[in-house]
């Protein structure tokens, strides 16, 4: 269906250009790219779960280049300290004074690789920055970059020696993306292309394709009808009254769902949210905010299957 409502046409075009730019570098992960863009426009952070080698770093690098922002990466390890993330004050012998060393969080896009490998206090330091978007060092509060988005990754297969993120901290991520292997055809394209070209090597186009701050402001202006808001809340509430889930999602999930639906509408080039936008974002928004009931887990059902089951029980609105 071609929606022709285009009040934010220029933004939609810019977003489309950015999407194409990232997709041209990260082959076969169109859905992941779309969801990352949604999180960027919604002003949230992303938790990415997938095995290593699927191009997560490339995604962030390319995206940073596309938005004209800075990119930094932290490899989380068990001995990583909070200061290694946020920064610290150190004495400079040459100047005979304390100088502030900003940590890698002072950037626009931060890739927190394997976040669950660091102990809880280091995780908490990052999660605090994600929430507050500022760091307090030596009594001074400093804002991190704008836009600011953390893309944290988790490896689903190696759980030995990891520190699982608590539910309250998981809630800080606006969406969780499951990144999977590309299709065979895409993998052939990746192999052919990157056998000759370095991953880190750019294609020469590092120009800013979109003003993210402006796009985020435009995103906030997208119309959400009351019926659509009610539908989003109904979907989230459906996770609470079921025996399939041990814990349902909280009100923060409803807010996140509507923010993501707005962002998706903007990407689709329309200035209002439809129930389809909400429905499309329900899995990424809710999958890390709910906990399966033990018996469901024993039965081998996944979170996505349970959520799809719940989706089918909530009536879609017809305003």
């Amino acid at each position, binding site marked *: 269906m071609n929606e022709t409502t285009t009040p934010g046409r220029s933004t939609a075009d810019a977003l489309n250009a950015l999407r194409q730019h990232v997709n041209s570098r990260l082959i076969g992960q169109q859905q992941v790219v779309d969801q990352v863009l949604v999180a960027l426009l919604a002003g949230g952070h992303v938790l990415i779960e997938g095995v290593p080698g699927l191009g997560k770093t490339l995604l962030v690098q390319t995206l940073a280049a596309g938005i004209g922002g800075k990119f930094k990466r932290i490899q989380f390890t068990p001995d990583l300290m909070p200061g290694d993330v946020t920064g610290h004050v150190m004495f400079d012998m040459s100047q005979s004074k304390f100088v502030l060393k900003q940590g890698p969080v002072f950037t626009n896009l931060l890739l927190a690789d394997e976040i669950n490998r660091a102990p809880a206090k280091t995780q908490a330091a990052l999660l605090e920055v994600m929430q507050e978007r500022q760091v307090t060092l030596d009594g001074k509060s400093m804002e991190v970059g704008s836009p600011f988005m953390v893309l944290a990754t988790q490896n689903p297969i190696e759980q030995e020696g990891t520190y699982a993120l608590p539910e309250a901290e998981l809630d800080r991520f606006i969406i969780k993306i499951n990144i999977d292997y590309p299709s065979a055809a895409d993998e052939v394209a990746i192999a052919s292309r990157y056998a000759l070209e370095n991953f880190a090597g750019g294609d020469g186009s590092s120009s800013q394709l979109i003003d993210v701050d402006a796009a985020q402001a435009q995103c906030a202006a997208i119309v959400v*009808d009351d019926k659509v808001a009610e539908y989003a809340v109904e979907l989230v509430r459906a996770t609470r009254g079921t025996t399939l889930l041990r814990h349902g999602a909280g009100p923060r999930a409803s807010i996140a769902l509507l923010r993501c639906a707005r962002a998706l509408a903007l990407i689709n080039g329309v200035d*209002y949210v*439809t129930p389809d936008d909400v429905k499309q974002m329900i899995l990424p928004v809710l999958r890390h905010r709910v906990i399966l009931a033990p018996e469901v887990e024993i039965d081998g059902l996944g979170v996505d299957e349970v959520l799809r089951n719940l989706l089918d029980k909530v009536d879609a609105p*017809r305003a």
Partner: protein
Amino acid sequence: MNLDKIQVNACLRSGWQAIDLGFLMARAWYRPLFLAGAIPALICFVPLLILFLEDPFWAGFCAWWLKPFFERVPLYVASRKLFEDEPSYGDILARARRLFTFDMLPLLLWRRLSVQRAFNAPVSVLEELKGSARAKRLRVLHGKYSDVAMSNQFVCFCFEMIFTIGLVLMFLFFTPERFFIEVYDSYDELTLAGEWIYTLAALIAMTLIMPFHSMAGFSLYLNRRIELEAWDIEINFRSLANRKQRAGGLAAWPLALGLALCLGLGAPAGVDAATTHDRESARELIEEVLRGADYGQQKTVSKWRFKEWEDEDEGDETIPEWLIEFIEWLLRNGNWSDGAGNLALWLKFMLIAVFVLLAIYLLKRYQGPLGSLVRRERRQAAPEVLFGLEVTPESLPEDVTAEVRRLWLDQAYREAIGLLYRASLSRLIDRHELAFRDSHTEAECAALVSERGIESLSTFFDELTRVWRRLAYGHQLPPGEVIDDLCRGWQRELSDAVD
């Protein structure tokens, strides 16, 4: 052997009933039988285990090979207890040498792997026969129950295995983790500890099951002797004679025997003692009866009947005469040189033909009602209210497009587009049998319509959905000409005229 003192009911039993009786005897006398087997076994196990300290498998194997040797004492004890005779330890010790040496070499060599060992054992142990006498005796005994005797051996072997595995597992389950014993090494071979555990468990299981195995074989042997030597009849005769004696009557034991013989040959049961005959007259009487018209004739009677049906049912449930004649005709005229296989093949083809004809008949017979049933069910499955909108054909106005245009002109824009959308859903459900669900969003409904592959319908519904969503969620009015286009599209794709 005093049959009067026999501890079991000496009557004819089937082989399996005899095994049951043997197991019952083993349970009743388990302690003495177990000890009688376990003590010599233990005396043998200990030196074997010491001898094969580093390789307990061979100790277990030797003990298993000597098993017939251990089974002899329990059998002897049981044979004594059967006739109410409690053997003392002295008796057993006095008998032990004979028990452990008589015909032992063949038993531990070429007869060791006999699968009817328990059934044959009483011939060697109790009757003390060997060589040709033993073989002759076994030929008589094996006239029946040899298959049951083999099954007994197999069943007891299975029980031994189950006990062995159970004991090993129980030991491992009850072993604390800090003392955890590696039963298998990295090459999946038993470790020395594992070999010890398995060997000890196997030896325990062997001694536990041994009384049951021996007694089942002994019971089979008894049953065969009761059958061959008519112990049951003899015991009845004796009890009859005893009763007569106690009653103070003149009838002596031989007379009672003669009476019983007559009874056994079919004389009336209520015959009086005064009519009894002596041996000579009884024989004459028997011969006279045998010369009668009822004897000495041979007659072959054959009839058809269902297997395992009671006789009283036969009158009502006989096989129809035509079927018998038909099968007999097939047998006469068919080429049945290959035997029953051909007959079965014929019957199979006939049955298939009958089923096919029956299916064709039923389909033809009920085609109309079944078709209407399916249609009715489909119609019943169609919802009346969907997404909170009434979608039955009756709920729509006569002329949908006229009503839409009227509402639009009255500036009831939302109602106008809503009516067109609702009417479209109703027609899609009713005419195109689309299965919308309440949880479907507008785009999902449009996708379902698109799946039908009718391009013009899909294009119309996509456009309608777009306009509807823009109005409903974006609060944006479409231009008036769009409504005209949609009305024309509706008339083209979904109005009654399209039927």
